Each structure stands twice: as C-alpha cells, then as structure tokens.
C-alpha cells in the first residue's frame, strides 16, 4: 500500500494580536491511497488547519515552523501559491467545507459553478463538459439533474448543496478529498444520506478521503483508519477496529467510553471533563496532562514521542 500523504513533525503557528497561537505542534499523519482516513478531535484542536495546509489555503498570518507535508513524495510546504493552484488544488486534492450554506457562490447557477470546475480540466467542447457535469451530479445521487442545473444555491437544501459541493470537487478527478466536517451542519437523516454517497464513492472509485469530524460515530461507518487529535497534536492513530476495541491513549479511551455510555448522543466529546486548552501558551509537556487521570510528573515536562505499539497503531503517551 502506498502512502499518498505523509505529514511529518508539522509545527505551525499563527501570529495574532494576543500572541502566537501554537496551532499545530509536531503533527504526524500518514494516509494510505484509496483509504478513508478519519481525523477526530474537539473543536479548535487543529483539524481544519491540518486540511488547509495540504491544499495550501492557510490564512496569511500562518507561519510554518518546521516539518514536511509529503504528497506523493513531494513536499507541499515548498510549493508556491502558483504551484498549489496549478498542480494541487482541484486536480490532486479537493476540499469540502463545513457549512454548505456558504460554500457555493450565491450569484452563480449550479451549472455555471459545476462547469467552472470541469472546464479547468482541459479544453473540451461545451457539449461534453455538460455531460460530465450531469454524470457527476448523478454520481452523488442528486435527483432531477436537468432542473437542478438551472438553480441557484439558495434554492437548494443543505444536504443537496453539500452533495453539489462533492460533485463539483470531484469534477477534476482529484486523488484525494478533504472533507472538513461535511455533515456537521446537516440534519441526522440527511447525514446518513450524505454518508451513503461517500460510501458509494469508496466502493466504486480509488478516491482517498481525509474525513474531519468531531463525531466518532460517523467515522465508524466510513473510515478505515482514524487519527485522534488533541490540542495541535495527533495522539493516536489506529485502524477503526483498534480504536474501538483497543484504544490506547487516555484521551482516546475517554472518547470511546463516552460514546459507549451515552449511546444515543454520539456528539459526545463535550462530556470529557475540562476543556481544550487555549493554544497561546499551551500546557508544556503532554498537552493533555491537565485533564489526564493517568498523568505523572514527567507528563508536564516531556513531550510524548510517537510510538508504534502494534501494526499501524501509533500512540503518543509517555505511559505506553
């Protein structure tokens, strides 16, 4: 199995008026080609930033301090804006955002926006571009494509918009899709429908998906591997089975336990005592230590290195 994405020791901060936000501090993340890889963690832990780094859309105040982001072996951190635009965005890596309500340009029709993506591929005649657009919309199971094309975003429901987004992002046949909490803004029933579309893509294409969420239950349905993020670091990466049956990091265990306890509400991360630390002056050593029941003295001094504790099972905890 080839790795399509390897993030190595990525450290990234933001300059703000209140100080330096140490948003990512030594992130390691490997994604296998053709796999669905989940990235889970509480709001503000750095999931979106990780995705935006891969597609080169970080805010201007971001500063990359060290590390590598290898996409098919090429370090994206060395790419210029122009290289990202020509070689990566849309073509190799596409991204779907959290809020479908604001992800489509309100003043252009669905057809215009879909065609815009498809046309970036190669110069083809109008006829076949329109055919490609219709195929894409069928692929994400949108009904009544003909009339949909003439519509404007405000005329679609959130679920439809999000499927249009996926179709649009697949318009250039990228190898990887970053889905940043794509179902968070959707109703539960619509979520299921959306996940079925993704499952279908998984079964019929070789698309790699980095699926960002703060909902562990969603991941169990579609992901092969999961990385758990806490305050700017990946604390555990394992197959979906290992995460549930054999969670190792104290934080992961709490996540899994809270899901099992509260079997109705799957949006469970809030139930862990304490809250995510602010990333201006984050806790030294292991960033989880103020909330960790297993913490020892050392934990507030030493940054836990990433260890392999089983096949493809990585954990960053001093006591493992």
């Amino acid at each position, binding site marked *: 199995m080839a790795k399509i994405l390897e993030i190595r020791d990525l450290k990234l901060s933001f300059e703000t008026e209140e100080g330096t936000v140490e948003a990512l501090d030594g992130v390691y993340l490997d994604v296998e080609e053709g796999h669905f890889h989940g990235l889970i963690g509480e709001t503000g832990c750095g999931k979106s930033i990780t995705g935006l780094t891969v597609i080169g859309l970080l805010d201007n105040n971001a500063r990359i301090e060290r590390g590598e982001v290898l996409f098919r072996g090429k370090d994206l951190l060395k790419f210029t804006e122009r290289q990202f635009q020509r070689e990566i965005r849309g073509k190799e890596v596409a991204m779907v955002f959290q809020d479908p309500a*604001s992800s489509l340009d309100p003043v*252009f029709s669905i057809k215009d926006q879909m065609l815009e993506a498809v046309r970036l591929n190669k110069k083809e005649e109008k006829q076949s571009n329109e055919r490609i657009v219709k195929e894409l919309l069928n692929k994400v199971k949108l009904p009544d494509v003909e009339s949909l094309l003439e519509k404007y975003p405000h005329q679609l429901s959130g679920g439809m918009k999000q499927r249009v987004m996926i179709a649009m992002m697949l318009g250039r046949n990228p190898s990887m899709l970053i889905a940043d909490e794509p179902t968070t803004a959707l109703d539960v029933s619509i979520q299921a429908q959306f996940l079925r579309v993704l499952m279908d893509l998984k079964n019929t294409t070789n698309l790699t998906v980095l699926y960002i969420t703060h909902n562990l239950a969603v991941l169990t349905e579609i992901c092969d591997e999961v990385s758990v993020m806490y305050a700017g670091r990946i604390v555990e990466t394992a197959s979906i089975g290992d995460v549930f049956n054999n969670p190792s990091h104290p934080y992961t265990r709490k996540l899994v336990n809270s899901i099992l306890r509260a079997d109705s509400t799957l949006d469970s991360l809030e139930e862990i005592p304490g809250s995510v630390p602010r990333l201006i002056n984050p806790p030294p050593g292991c960033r989880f230590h103020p909330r960790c029941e297993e913490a020892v003295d050392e934990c507030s001094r030493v940054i836990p290195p990433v260890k392999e504790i089983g096949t493809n099972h990585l954990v960053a905890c001093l006591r493992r």
Partner: protein
Amino acid sequence: MAGRKRSFWIRRIVRTLVTAFGVSLVAFLILHLTPGDPAKIMLGPYASEAAYEAIRERYHLNEPLPLQYLYWISGVFRGDLGDSIRYNRPVLELIKDRIGPTLALMGSALFISITLGIFLGIVAAIKRNTPIDYFATFQAVFWLSIPPFWLGILFLYIFGLQLRWVPIGGMVGFTSLIFPALTIGLRDEAWFARPMRAEMLEVLNQDYIKAVKAKGLKYSSVIVKHALRNALIPMITMIALRLPWVIGGSVVVEVVFSWGGLGSFLVSSVLARDYPVVQAILLLIAMLVVVANLVADLLYSVIDPRIRKES
C-alpha cells in the same frame, strides 16, 4: 413565484409614484413657502399692477392652491413648464439647452468615482495592511476633507492659471470637462472606496471563496469573477444613495467652473427669483433621484439571483 415577483414590482412602482408625487408637491410649493405675494416675489416690488395681474393670470395664482398644483402638474405632463420670467422663454427650451453639459459633467464624475472607487477598494482589500492600503485610505480622507468649491478653485488656480493646461472655466471642449469632473468625482470616489474595501474583505472571507480556490481557479479569476461580483451588489445602493450628493456637488462645481449647465442655471435663477425655472429644475433633479433608485432596484434583481428568483 411569478405572482410574488409581480406583486413586488407593483408595490415598488407604486412606491415610486407616491414618492414622485411627494417631490413634485415640494417643488411646486417652493414658491408658496416664501412669505408674501407670489406675483411680487417673482416680479419684484416695482412692477406695474397690470404685470402682477398678468402673472397671476398666467400661473393661476388667484385659484386655490390644490387647483394651482393641478394646473402646474398637468402642464408638466404636457411639456409646459411655464415661461422663464428672466428670459421670457419657455422653461423647457432653456432646460434643453443646458441639460447636455450637466449630464456630461455628472456622467464623467460618476464614471470617475465609480471606476476609481471600486478599483481602489479592491486593491486596498487585496493588499490590506500594506502601504498600498494605507495610501488608499489616506487619499480618501484627503479628498473627503476638502470642500468641493475649494478643490475646484485650487484646480483652476494650478492647472488653469499657473500651468495653463486647461481653460479657466467655461466649456471649451473636452479639456474643460476634466477638472470639474475630477472635483466631483474624486470626492465620491473616496466615498465609494471605503465601503468597497469593506465589502471585498467580507466576501474574501467567505467559504465560497475558499471553495473556488480549492477547485483550482486562478487567483485573478477568483477576484474578478467571484469576489467582485458579490461585493458589487451592495455597492449599487451605495451609488444610488450617493446620487443627490453628486447632483449637489455639480451645482457648486458648475458655479465655480462657470459651467453652463443646469446647476449654475439653478443658482442664477434662484438669485433672480425666476420661480418657474427653479421649480422645473428641482422637479427634474428629484425625478432623477427617484428614477435612479428604481433603476438600482432593477439592477439588483438582475445581478442577485436571490432577489431575481424570490421576491
């Protein structure tokens, strides 16, 4: 949907008509708001009794006010705006002679202010917090803090008197249009550049901008196609709302530059108490503003599909 759309337009047009009626009333009442006998106001205190009676007859001043209005407004619809007391010629003819220069001046001023204001707004947003952005702010504050008549005099002094690049006032071809147009246009440019910058920044922060970038669209296309189109929508109102100031500015500037348009004509007619002319020009200006607002709404519905399809 079509029904709702139609009722929206019916309501909009009714509102325009009501506004138009209101402003026509104001223009009409101008003469009567001034205390004293309108005939004496128009002719001055030293005319003969026969002359007073003639003017009362001509403008139906012996009739009750509502009837006078009806006479006046039905005249307006027939193209009879009365006769100028000063020139003893139909007001309509006098206006026809002068409306061209005014439209040329206002048109150029608007063109300068809109293109420059929008351009500087975009550039300032893209290059925010850089010297370019600071320069855009600085120039806007600069133009806004100079009174138009003073700026006009300054231009005349420097470019007319000292450098002799342009004629000192009057209307001698294209060159004499430049500085009057700049005097109005620069001020309004300053007025448009700030909100345009704010709109652009707001739009550039939207998810859909990130999304079109994620598709792989070129930066220039992202700006020109998506950001600009969205940021321009609220600017339509800004521009329509600004129109009265553009008109007001052109009145002052026409006087400063001896521009033979409606603005300077209005001022001289006020001074000469040539009320039929004053009424007609005020009515014209007010109608222009009313129509511009209607056009702005129409434009909205063309550019913004959210309005086009729903309301």
